[in-house]
């Protein structure tokens, strides 16, 4: 094959790109340097097998492996499916208990039953607390039923946790909601055990732990998807605000410690009519006072109280209070609001992005179909009029000249609008090329670029010649 572009001709970027793609796909450089086969011949599984791996590495001098990775949208594979495809499970006589446990947990009846029990628990607790003080003997059987119900619910929750453990022990701990469930159940179990064992009630702690029964209602949060989404959004918003909160803490610290020193005179004053006397006495109180000022509550009363003491300089105390109000309450609070708003907007945009992604995919699919239809419409006519060149031209002229697409756009604009979407589309279809055809394709494509460039230049020559007609 002779050279198809004269040496010293300009380099077209497109042609260069096509050539480098060719080189890349066929790994020509390694081949021309006599190095490797350059055809993907091994799979990942073979690579992980140690003996095969050694063989491969010894054969390839550079010990280089090239991977071809393609991101795919994999739908969620449940644990049950994974289990089912394991050899151990398929070859055993009876299915393992975890499969049954997983089936029970996924069953809608069971999950609805659990939700119902959580509601029942809340109601039982409410009624129990109301009846706790009354000594009406007629209500005694009611109290008994309530107690039995509470115990029953606790046992069912424990059973659920045991089921989850049999289903998959390791995965249980990786999910934060499950850990929360576990902690709540154990917390509400402890007082019962303590009472059973017979330790006489150290009333305060046991009361507190009994109250943890109430926390069981929080298990509801894990069940409903909407609440989960909101909580996740909140957690994300908080995470992005960590530095802001750290900065706020630093400012709290600064003003608290400074407050102790600034208002030393006020704390040590012997006047009897000071309302907020102990508010700046030590660091903890000062911290609480700073927080009170942050919420703008009775700050003027506090300031006027401080002014009653003559030892405290008015200027410094007012500067302190006003500065903290401006900085903390007005500026910081609004920054927090602003960051929350932007975060929620971002989350909403991300959710929208998924929707727009789907929309773009759909549009790209429609575009693809349009193209295919077009080629199909064109080819029979092109075949018909292939004997006469002028006919083809006129046919093409009539076809393309009047071709206006849906939306009144010409072909170029239509392509330009839809091309990015098409490029980003999830390529689920792969094209199988025969090797020599692929090589020829790339070669021809590169030649085509140069030919097009030449045609353009000839065109310009023709125009120039036309323009140069002079009137003599």
């Amino acid at each position, binding site marked *: 094959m002779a050279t198809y572009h004269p040496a010293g001709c300009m380099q077209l970027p497109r042609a260069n790109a096509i050539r480098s793609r060719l080189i890349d796909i066929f790994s020509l450089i390694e081949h021309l340097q006599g190095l490797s086969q350059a055809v993907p011949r091994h799979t990942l599984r073979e690579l992980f097998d140690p003996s095969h791996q050694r063989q491969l590495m010894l054969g390839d001098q550079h010990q280089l492996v090239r991977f071809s990775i393609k991101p795919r949208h994999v739908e969620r594979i449940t644990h049950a499916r994974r289990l089912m495809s394991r050899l151990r499970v398929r070859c055993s006589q009876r299915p393992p208990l975890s499969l049954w446990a997983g089936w029970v947990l996924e069953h809608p009846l069971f999950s609805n039953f659990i939700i119902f029990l959580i509601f029942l628990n809340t109601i039982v607790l409410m009624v129990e607390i109301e009846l706790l003080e009354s000594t009406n003997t007629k209500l005694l059987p009611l109290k008994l039923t309530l107690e039995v119900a509470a115990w029953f619910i606790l046992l069912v929750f424990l059973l659920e946790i045991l089921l989850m453990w049999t289903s998959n022990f390791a995965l249980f701990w990786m999910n934060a909601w499950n850990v929360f469930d576990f902690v709540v159940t154990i917390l509400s179990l402890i007082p019962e055990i303590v009472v059973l064992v017979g330790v006489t009630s150290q009333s305060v702690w046991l009361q507190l732990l009994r109250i943890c029964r109430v926390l069981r209602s929080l298990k509801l949060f894990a069940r409903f998807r909407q609440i989960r989404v909101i909580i996740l959004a909140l957690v994300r918003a908080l995470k992005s605000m960590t530095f802001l909160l750290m900065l706020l803490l*630093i400012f709290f610290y600064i003003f608290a410690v400074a407050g102790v020193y600034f208002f030393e005179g006020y704390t040590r004053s012997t006047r009897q009519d000071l309302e907020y006397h102990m508010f700046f006495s030590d660091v903890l109180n000062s911290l609480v006072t700073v927080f009170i000022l942050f919420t703008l509550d009775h700050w003027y009363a506090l300031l006027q109280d401080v002014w009653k003491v003559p030892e405290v300089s008015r200027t410094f105390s007012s500067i302190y209070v006003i500065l903290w109000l401006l900085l903390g309450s007005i500026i910081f609070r609004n920054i927090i609001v602003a960051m929350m708003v932007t975060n929620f907007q971002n989350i909403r945009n991300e959710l929208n992005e998924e929707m727009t992604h789907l929309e773009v995919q759909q549009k790209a699919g429609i575009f693809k179909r349009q193209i295919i239809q077009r080629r199909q419409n064109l080819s029979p006519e092109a075949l018909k009029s292939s004997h006469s060149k002028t006919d083809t031209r006129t046919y093409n002229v009539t076809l393309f000249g009047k071709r206006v697409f849906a939306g009144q756009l010409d072909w170029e604009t239509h392509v330009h609008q839809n091309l990015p979407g*098409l490029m980003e589309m999830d390529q689920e279809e792969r094209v199988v090329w025969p090797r020599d055809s692929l090589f020829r394709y790339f070669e021809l494509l590169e030649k085509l670029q140069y030919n097009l460039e030449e045609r353009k230049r000839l065109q310009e020559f023709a125009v120039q010649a036309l323009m140069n007609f002079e009137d003599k």
Partner: protein
Amino acid sequence: MRPKVQTGRKDTEFQAFVQRFLAGSLFKMIMISTISLNAFFVVLWTDYEIRFRLFRLLEISEILFVSIYSTEFFIKLYVDPIVYWKDGYNLLDVLIIIIISIPYALQKIKGKHYPYLNIANGLQSLRILKLITYSRGIRTLITAMGQTAYTVASVLILLFLLMYVFAILGFCLFGAPEMGDLKNWGNLAVAFFTLFSLATVDGWTDLQQELDNRNFLLSRTFTIVFILLASFIFLSMFVGVMIIHTEDSIKKFERELKVERHMILMEEKQVILKRQQEEVSHLMQTQQNVDYQSFSELVENFKKTLQHTDPMVLDDFGTSLPFIDIYLSTLDNQDTTIYKLQELYYEIVHVLSLMLEELPKQQ
């Protein structure tokens, strides 16, 4: 004294060493632990009992901290004395060193019982601000917030002007020496405080009650108008302005990140392309067995090894069917346009030649 030449510094090696030390993580660890320890001690000293009992520890730790801070200052100054003053965080360091030295200076100058000594002690809590230099997250936050500072300042100035107008109005209306409410509107400063209290709607009903007790006309209108203007409109405007600016700065930040990443990606791609081209030309030049004239001749042998039955599975866009369809359609379009143009040219030339033939006939 280090010798300094006009064009450069003679002690470049040591300077480089010190610079490396400053940038290293050991230095950061030391500084962060020192500052945190200092902050904790400042909290401890607020309590009189602890100060009384651990007096010696207090003195020694104070000396330690001051020495560490001044060493850091001198080292950083040594590395680059002129550029040092341009960085804001270095100025913060200098400010904190000055703040640390204020109590001692005051004690020396004004004696031990100067009433404002506790204020100087209170300022020591600012030492924790040095921690900001070592935390990148807070630094980016502050730079982002710093861009909103201008807007914040303008809103505050506007609020101040509004309060000024209403303060003078209030003073004239309600601050008259006899009948007026002297405690809240007696002089301009107190009037300002009252108005600020109204703006933050804290305890404003009590203030209003006092004015009501003195039977002022218009007091209610005054108060309500001011509260609407300052609290509802101004402070809400504050929120709105901050939201917009935070959004803008975050968007700008993300855009810059994206552009940066894009540029890096493009550069890497260019590097790879260049390397490929160089290798190919290198190969073409070093072939001494047969003189290949072009790239295609070079790969002639390779092409012969390609078989039609060998499959290659590709899924990139350049070899996919939609691309081929689109490209061929676009090419067909181009062809038709050029044919049309050619027809037009022929026509032009035809018409011109006709005109040319007619010309001598007319003459």
